[in-house]
């Protein structure tokens, strides 16, 4: 086990019942080097200040609860290793989301956007369960597998400059999820999803900065998905307007 060292953990605090604006509070935390920032927050909660509020659960980067800004970057608290930082670490709630309290943000906007893209299989053909599975080869699975890995942690929204400027923007994770189903060989719902994502607030709002893919802890590459959606939507447009005799 690595030796202990002390860090200064500077945490944004905000309690809507007592604070008119957010403030910072610094805790001295004795850390083991293999700890993650979430361990340091848990140390504070257990030993120094039970009033600190934040979300977390799995501690293995799969539940997506513990996204925070750590030294200004969107990170999962359970995958931000103390040894990668100096002795002063600043933790703030995810950028671009309203603060509920301390590190807890209001996430309804993201949830609504995710739901709006119809992120479920709209089967090409109806088939009873008794008829068995829809065949899907490993190669067909590979076409969309990467986009299924999104844990809805919202780091990409915190990193996206466009979402910060234009709150109506559907954003990286929601569009990637639409793309995931569009690419699934079992699915026939692309036209329905295009109505939502091939709009001004949809994919065309993206300015392709690529920050979403850089911060994604699961390497989903939402920026890549958005570019593919843009290309496909452009082809749709040409087909519709210049070659109306060709079916999409």
């Amino acid at each position: 086990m690595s030796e202990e060292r002390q860090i200064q953990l500077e945490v944004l605090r905000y309690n809507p019942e007592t604070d008119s604006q957010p403030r910072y509070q610094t805790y001295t935390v004795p850390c083991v080097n293999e700890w993650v920032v979430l361990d340091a927050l848990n140390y504070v909660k257990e030993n120094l200040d039970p009033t600190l509020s934040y979300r977390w659960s799995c501690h293995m980067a799969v539940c997506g609860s513990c996204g925070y800004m750590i030294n200004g970057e969107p990170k999962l608290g359970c995958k931000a290793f103390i040894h990668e930082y100096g002795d002063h670490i600043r933790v703030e709630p995810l950028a671009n989301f309203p603060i509920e309290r301390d590190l807890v943000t209001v996430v309804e906007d993201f949830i609504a956007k995710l739901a709006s893209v119809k992120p479920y299989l709209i089967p090409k053909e109806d088939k009873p369960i008794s008829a068995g599975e829809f065949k899907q080869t490993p190669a067909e699975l590979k076409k969309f597998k990467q986009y299924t890995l999104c844990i809805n942690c919202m780091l990409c929204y915190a990193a996206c400059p466009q979402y910060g400027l234009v709150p109506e923007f559907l954003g990286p994770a929601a569009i990637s999820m639409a793309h995931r189903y569009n690419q699934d060989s079992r699915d026939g719902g692309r036209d329905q999803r295009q109505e939502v994502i091939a709009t001004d607030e949809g994919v065309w709002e993206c300015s392709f900065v690529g920050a979403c893919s850089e911060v994604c802890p699961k390497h989903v590459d939402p920026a890549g998905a958005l570019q593919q959606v843009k290309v496909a939507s452009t082809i749709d447009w040409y087909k519709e307007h210049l070659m109306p005799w060709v079916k999409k």
Partner: protein
Amino acid sequence: MEIIKTDVAIVGAGGAGLRAAIALAEADPKLRIALISKVYPMRSHTCAAEGGAAGVIKSDDSLDLHFNDTVGGGDWLCDQNAVEYFINEAPKELMQLEHWGCPWSREPDGSVAVRPFGGMKIKRTWFAADKSGFHILHTLFQTSLKYPSIQRFDEYYAIDLLVDDGRCQGLTALEIRSGEIKQFQAKSVIIAAGGAGKMFPFTTNGAIKTGDGMALAYRAGVPLKDMEFVQYHPTGLPNNGILLTEGCRGEGGILVNKDGRRYLQDYGMGPETPVGQPVLKTMELGPRDRLSQSFWHEQRKGNTVSTPWGECVLLDMRHLGEKKINERLPLVRDLCVSYLNMDPVKEPIPIRPVVHYCMGGIHTDIKAATPVPGLFAAGECACVSINGANRLGSNSLTELLVFGRRAALSAIEHLQSGLSASNDPALSAQAKASEDRIRALFDQSAGTETVAGLRKEMMHTMEENAGIYRTGEELQRACEKIAELRGRYANLALTDKSKVFNTDLMQALELGSMLECAEAVAVGARDRKESRGAHQRLDFTARDDQNFLKHTLAYYHPKEPPRIEYLDVVITKSQPGVRDYSGAKK
């Protein structure tokens, strides 16, 4: 207090809760469904399940084989009528998920692939790489978005059930965002709120696994069944308890001690099988209870490897090669590299057994119904019981689906059964009492106990006295200590007095749930004077079918330890026999 009227209220939005919600919405679009969870659905701990879900699909398999593996794996404590229902429904449910888009791993011909798992005689575990639970949860959550009748109450913490006229008619829940308590008035209530692994300090379970659903039913008079059976998963990362799936061994990983010996052969699971060619139901593919117990013996013999995080054995996967590890076990590799700074492609990984799953839970029958009319339960919080004394890996994900749906169907039968009108003033009075109980927590300014302090003592007590091997003396100590902690809990002081997102209050309530569950574990274990499955007594080393082929039922008492009763196990076709995991004899 705001009253929210609904037909069916579901507590918990993980695999079982979501499956129930979808089944309700599909059965009747006019049903009002309230899906209540203390976290957003995709945060539920179903997401952490890795290996896969069992269901008979391949031509070399049969329902009988799945039945035998499950009942024998459970050391004959399973109710066999429940197991029969379960294995029959399992393939349909897994196929249903396929039709909903679950990205199951595939064979080259496009059919669903299956992998070997511990204690299973035939390969029958459907998997989505090593993120099976994650994909099941997200597939269900995303599918649930299709149904407008599923009204979600995300980040609501269930406080108390409302039971009047002999039936469950709703619950109170705390809206975490506002700190307000709401009354849900429902004709049927389904609890699907997960396990209680956080009673122990070293566990694969996430922070949210605090037994709230179990305690909710328990306090309302429903017995907790077989709580003494707590499963240790044999392969957890030693520094933080992160799970490395049984799929590691299913794919061919081996377990060795400090001398490089595959020690499982010394505990009735030999002879040794060729490295990289796993043989079903023997050696590394033995059941979890046996593997975890073998570790304990190796540690006693001094055969384990000392690490900064305690004694370990080694999980060696190097012979699988980088390609297979990346394809079949990508999460495992990522977890080892990230959290232990060790690469399974290049080096053996130190592991040790870790608390993983509660076989016990809310007493239900095979229709997922509790003894209280109108109250149903499914998933880890429930005990049907298909898992008996030791759950087989990959049965729990399937259980969420099969009994999640079953609970929904039973909930519909109940609300169509000609219920009399509710006595609204009586329900409101109960809701008010529930609110007063929470308010009182805020007023105990003279309290001297802290959440963190009591929780630490509880965890320590459970680890020291109710672990892989137990004795009557230690369990008695655990009973006394947990009873003491329950008493001291009444003297708890909250530091945080605010309403909005008060996690100090949440943790206090969760601690209360865990203490109640922990006492049922300790008392049930002390009184079960035999060794069976995951419950191993050093002072009663043999299985005792004469006296204990029975389920333990623990009944809640507000101040005293639970009253214990016993219920016969349902045997339909498999008489208790010897659990044989020695491949050589076949």
